[in-house]
């Protein structure tokens, strides 16, 4: 007897369904209500809606269609991974203009989430650098969805709704993006630690006035006077004279070979790990060259690190608390977090990033202010914690990041996402029958439950 297949996001919270892969993404996408990439979104954004048995998966559709070594303009199929782009193009002096914290993502997924990175305060989201997209629209009646190109010059509404649109406006088939020329394939990295949240946040803001890449790591379990202690990282591409002559060697990777027991990441263990991370950082700070892999993708060094959370799985909560007043809102956020998680799930891996201007994507996440991200094990109390955090963020006028979300309630989402009506208007224009859906879109009330079914054989 075989159990029905299940599919999950990076947080390992499974729903029924399976993914279908094919090199021929345009044909495959015509048979599915959603396309996913490498499944690195934490929650249910890449999972089939209830009643839909499958999602299309893009990673085999990974051809580079054009690359101009003079201008750095790249056009590729949506399944091309950032890891492959970096492997091929970084030695030639080209890097993605914006990178998330893992390179195990596809171009299509990057566009769907309109990702941001350590350089958000100067470079904006990935969408700012996208020239055009090729999208397979939802089917209409008996006609399979048409394949259209959209950009700032054609079908601008579709273009803006697709950047950060979580795959709900159409299947992204091709992406054309302007890469960034880098002076060397190495990073000049500096970091300093701070004993509490206020000095940490002001150091982060100060760093962003002078550095193109900044981020802060916070020990979210330190309390009292140590609450919010952490490390501010800043970096820039190294100049050739600072960098080693050789290109960085590919990082060695280890894997978590199987699912850890759920008690492994318990509160004392997490508190100890966080405290060690803080204490091991020299008080006088660190300066020096680093590899892009260790600077941008430290967690990629451990394959399947999500297995550490065990069978229960986990979620990442990420919100942005807007300026002005982001600092005060962040302090309040940590008050609520501490109260909500005293007995419940212990927050691990807390990261704060100051955001620059809002992107063009209609549901693009960042806006000027402070973004807070933290991993929470999916313990029984998780829904209450997410509810409490969402209410704090609503009160501050902030919003959440859909690529992370697994627990937000539809009524909260409407208050968090004031741009929703415009997004829904455009969605109806391109998908009037409401074919496209994900587990997340149904949970958040963006698409009605039920929805059409697709035949068994593509």
């Amino acid at each position, binding site marked *: 007897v*075989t159990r029905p297949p299940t599919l999950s996001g990076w947080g390992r919270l499974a729903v029924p369904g399976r993914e*279908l*892969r094919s*090199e*021929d993404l345009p044909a495959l996408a015509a048979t599915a209500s959603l396309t996913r990439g490498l499944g690195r979104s934490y929650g249910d954004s890449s999972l089939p809606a209830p009643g839909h048995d499958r999602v299309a998966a893009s990673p*085999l559709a990974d*051809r580079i269609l054009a690359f101009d070594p003079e201008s750095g303009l790249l056009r590729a199929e949506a399944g091309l991974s950032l890891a492959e782009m970096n492997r091929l193009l970084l030695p030639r002096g080209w890097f993605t203009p914006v990178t998330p914290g893992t390179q195990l993502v596809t171009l299509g997924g990057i566009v769907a989430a309109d990702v941001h990175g350590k350089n958000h305060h100067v470079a904006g989201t990935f969408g700012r650098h996208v020239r055009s997209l090729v999208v397979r629209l939802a089917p209409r009646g008996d006609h399979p969805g048409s394949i259209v190109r959209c950009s700032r010059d054609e079908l601008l509404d579709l273009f803006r709704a697709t950047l950060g649109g979580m795959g709900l406006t159409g299947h992204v088939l091709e992406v054309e993006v302007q890469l960034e020329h880098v002076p060397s394939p190495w990073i000049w990295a500096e970091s300093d630690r701070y004993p509490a949240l206020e000095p940490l946040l002001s150091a982060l803001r100060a760093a962003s006035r002078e550095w193109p890449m900044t981020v802060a790591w916070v020990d979210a379990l330190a309390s009292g006077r140590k609450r919010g202690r952490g490390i501010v990282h800043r970096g820039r591409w190294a100049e050739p004279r600072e960098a080693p002559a050789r290109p960085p060697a590919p990082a060695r990777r280890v894997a978590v070979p199987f699912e850890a027991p759920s008690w492994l990441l318990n509160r004392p263990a997490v508190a100890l790990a966080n405290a060690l991370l803080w204490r091991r950082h020299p008080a006088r700070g660190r300066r020096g060259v680093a590899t892009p892999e260790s600077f941008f993708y430290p967690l990629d060094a451990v394959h399947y690190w999500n297995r550490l959370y065990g069978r229960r799985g986990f979620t990442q909560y990420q919100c942005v608390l807007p300026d002005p007043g982001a600092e005060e809102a962040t302090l309040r956020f940590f008050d609520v977090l501490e109260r909500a998680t005293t007995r419940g799930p212990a927050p691990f891996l807390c990261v704060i990033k100051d955001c620059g201007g809002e992107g063009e994507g209609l549901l693009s996440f960042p806006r000027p202010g402070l973004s807070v991200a933290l991993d929470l094990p999916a313990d029984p109390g998780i829904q209450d914690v997410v509810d409490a955090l969402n209410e704090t963020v609503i009160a501050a006028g902030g919003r959440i990041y859909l690529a992370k979300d697994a627990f937000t309630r539809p009524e909260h989402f409407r208050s968090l996402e004031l741009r929703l009506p415009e997004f829904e208007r455009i969605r109806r224009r391109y998908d009037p029958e409401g074919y496209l859906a994900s587990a997340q879109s149904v949970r958040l009330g963006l698409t009605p439950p039920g929805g059409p079914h697709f035949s068994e054989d593509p």
Partner: protein
Amino acid sequence: MKAVILGATKGIGRALARRMVERGDGLALLGRDLEDLKRSAADLAARAPQAPAAGIFRCDLEDPATFAPALTAAEEHLGGLGAVVLTAGLFATQEQLEADPERARRVLTVDFAHSVLFLEEARRRLLARGGGTLCALSSVAGERGRKPVVLYGAAKAGLTRYLEGLDARYRRAGLRVVCVKPGFVKTGMTAGLPVPPFAGEPDPVARDILRALDRGAPVVYTPGVWRWVMLVIRHLPRVVMRRVGF
């Protein structure tokens, strides 16, 4: 190495072509869809700007009349011929093939008769040049008559025997025959099938094939663990094969 690949736009063939251009090999890509071939050639050019540009030539495994012209044009483009690799093929489940005799005819014809005819055409050209490497993707499905792959496995068994015979007959004349026996590999061809243990990814499989091409290894199982899986399955008695599901 100057190599012709039929099937380089997808799956294992795509991964193999990438590995070959990245180390500087000259390639001619054969396939039935010129638009698709163009996209693959662009991909290879972007990955390895220093390698010679890959040529593209129309060749349809369902139409033997296309074999000779495509190989002639490819040989001309390469200015030589070191290896011919056949990675294309058709797959369908046993249930699909039993339900649809026309589909069964296509799979049996393409995976056996036409594959052999294509390889014969390539063999003649390689021998005329004094030798070279002839490589085809057979399958572990051809190792033993098994419930889920009765028809597909029969075609692949025939292909395996043909390659074995070529090796016996022409090895001395300079023909190096490489029979690749992939286990389950996660490509578009196997999309939607339940994924068994020991399933492989296209790129590591391509790495194994390239090593076998360079060495002229007559038989290669990939992922390697399938050698031992099939060793066991080959020795299971009939009464067991009638009972088990694999």
